[in-house]
């Protein structure tokens, strides 16, 4: 009995009639829910389609049909991105044939983009031969604040969190790396050729191990004739030469030497050395960072910039604010042209391209030349009267209001906080 298809002429009629109030619910029932309301299996086993049910009304009031399968614009895109994050292939290397050791610079406890490129390079070295897979060991000095080390391509994590490795401690770090070399004997050592991190430590390590490292590596290719199976291209002679040579055991690589890992998630399981690291006699004593005058720091390399534009009326208060906040002063072109600031303080395409971590723009509406100049700033804070200006669109935090008042309130708060600390101390 149940084999015989049953028809409900009324429901079919409702399904055909787009204007019927029950139209969508009937369509959903006919379609079985799975394929949506636009497509369902007819009574004779034929797929029926309702092209009118496709798509959605776009922001301009026109009907848009999205054939990618993802409906409703923005939300779906965000979901797709999340799905892409979730769909990273999990990789676990239980018994590696060899190891690739990486010492990331770990600025501020986080992997920099240079570190990620380097880990991508390490993965290329480790995964080149499907028969003999290698594992990437990351040697981390100090506490890291990275949530997903495995996403960067790390199989094993070897942390050294002792206070002896903090600050400038090349001798202690070198002793730790020498201990890693003795116990794990990695086939490759990779360090970033960056002034703060690997450039110093990598060269020390190479000299300690008696290897001649490749520095400024920016490309590697496989080469069967080379001892390690790889050939590298490195920069030399003040960036004016390309040196092609077999890849040595220790390589110091430049930024963008490889693509960062994007498709896989690795285990990042913590390991430790069985033997303790012998304590190195430190002949260099780190007395800590020195407070530098922010006004003397070059604008291009300042970390925190307070920049003023046309909206600033009281320049005395602006200079005072920069002093209290400990910020380097910058200015928009208008402020410089009007004679309130010196020409060397101008930020933007026609002035200085800045790389500040925090850029506080006060009364700057954001001309395109100015926005170009602050492209590589991490966090931009804007204070402006006009909520529609371009700087507000670029800013990570925007406060709409009078620049002078807000700056004065900010200065008062910082001074009050300092006063409390002094009283407590």
């Amino acid at each position, binding site marked *: 009995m149940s084999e015989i298809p049953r028809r409900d002429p009324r429901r079919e009629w409702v399904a055909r009639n787009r204007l019927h109030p029950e139209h969508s619910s009937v369509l959903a029932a006919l379609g079985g829910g799975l394929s949506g309301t636009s497509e369902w299996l007819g009574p004779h086993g034929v797929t029926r389609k309702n092209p009118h049910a496709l798509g959605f009304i776009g922001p301009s009031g026109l009907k848009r049909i999205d054939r990618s399968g993802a409906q409703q614009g923005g939300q779906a895109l965000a979901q797709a991105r999340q799905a892409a994050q979730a769909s990273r292939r999990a990789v676990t290397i239980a018994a590696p044939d060899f190891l690739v050791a990486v010492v990331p610079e770990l600025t501020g406890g986080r992997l920099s983009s240079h570190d990620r490129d380097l880990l991508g390079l390490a993965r290329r070295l480790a995964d080149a031969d499907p028969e003999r897979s290698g594992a990437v060991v990351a040697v981390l000095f100090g506490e890291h604040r990275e949530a997903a080390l495995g996403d960067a391509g790390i199989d094993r994590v070897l942390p050294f969190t002792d206070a002896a490795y903090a600050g400038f401690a090349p001798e202690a770090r070198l002793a730790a790396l020498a201990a890693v070399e003795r116990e794990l004997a990695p086939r490759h050592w990779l360090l970033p050729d960056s002034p703060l991190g690997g450039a110093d430590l990598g*060269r*020390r390590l190479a000299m300690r191990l008696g290897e001649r490292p490749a520095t400024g590596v920016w490309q590697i290719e496989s080469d069967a004739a080379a001892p390690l199976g790889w050939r590298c291209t490195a920069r030399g002679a003040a960036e004016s030469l390309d040196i092609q040579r077999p890849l040595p055991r220790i390589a110091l690589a430049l930024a963008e030497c490889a693509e960062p890992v994007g498709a896989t998630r690795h285990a990042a399981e913590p390991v430790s050395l069985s033997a303790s690291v012998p304590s190195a006699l430190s002949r*260099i004593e780190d007395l800590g960072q020195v407070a530098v005058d922010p006004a003397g720091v070059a604008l291009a390399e300042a970390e925190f910039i307070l920049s003023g534009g046309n909206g600033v009326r009281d320049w005395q208060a602006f200079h005072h604010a920069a002093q209290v906040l400990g910020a380097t002063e910058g200015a928009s072109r208008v402020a410089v042209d009007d004679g309130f600031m010196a020409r060397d303080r101008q930020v933007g395409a026609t002035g200085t391209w800045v790389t500040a971590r925090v850029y506080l723009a006060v009364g700057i509406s954001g001309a395109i030349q100015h926005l170009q100049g602050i492209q590589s700033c991490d966090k931009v804070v804007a204070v402006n009267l006009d909520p529609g200006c371009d700087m507000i*669109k670029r800013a*990570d935090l*925007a406060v709409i209001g009078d620049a002078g008042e807000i700056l004065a309130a900010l200065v008062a708060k910082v001074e009050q906080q300092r006063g409390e600390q002094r009283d407590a101390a």
Partner: protein
Amino acid sequence: MQPEPQGIEMAVLVSVGRHPLTERARRADQDARGLELALDLASRVAGSRLRLVHAGPRSDESERALRDYLGMAGDSGSGLDSLTLLEQPSGADAITALVEHLAAAAPQLVITGTRAERGEGSGLLPYALAERLGWPLINGLAAVERIEDGVATLLQALPRGQRRRLQVRLPVIVSVDAAAPAARQSAYGPARRAALASEPAPAALDRELAEWQLAPARKRPKRLKIVKAASARDRFKAAAAKAEGGSGQVIEGVDAEQGAEAILKLLRDEGVLSR
């Protein structure tokens, strides 16, 4: 500053540089900064002795470049009127000769540039010297604050114009980079009058370097924005996307106090406010 009863022995290792545009030989920028640092220190600490050392082949071109260093001393009263030239055949590795020379001369402070402007330019020389001589090494020196009782207090340059204070017992090797004070001009007359004193030195040929292929640097390929999209729609969206924006938080219609509070919170989270 108190003048020192006994001066310090300094050796500045200099190399032949290369002008980035004309490719002519010149004084190397970092080495000249190192010499500037040494001359400044010699004028502050009475009785200091300063020597210039270069290891490399002797030719008219390199001699002209090396005299540029000697011209810097000029009338500074440092008594620097000669340069020790450890003659090497071309293609030789300077490290062996320098190690031998420094071990014999035993200066208390060795100043070098970070990287050479010719040859491999790997920046390994100070590290090789430190490892062979067993002396501590400090890179990226910005200033020498003081030297007392054989202990030097130095400022090391960090990125973003920051400085770190370090203390180290002499002898020490320091390398300077672009953060050190800019070099003074070189005077022509004193440069002509100064002497290049050749010294015999052992030479070791760098066979590895001879096997490598050297070519003028070619421009590195610009990294492309790789879009990993499953569908044409995602690819189109990524290609047509304008610069990211609109993700920021906008605070509107509040008084100045609350606005300042929000900014202060961000500054504190980012850790840019000094204590």
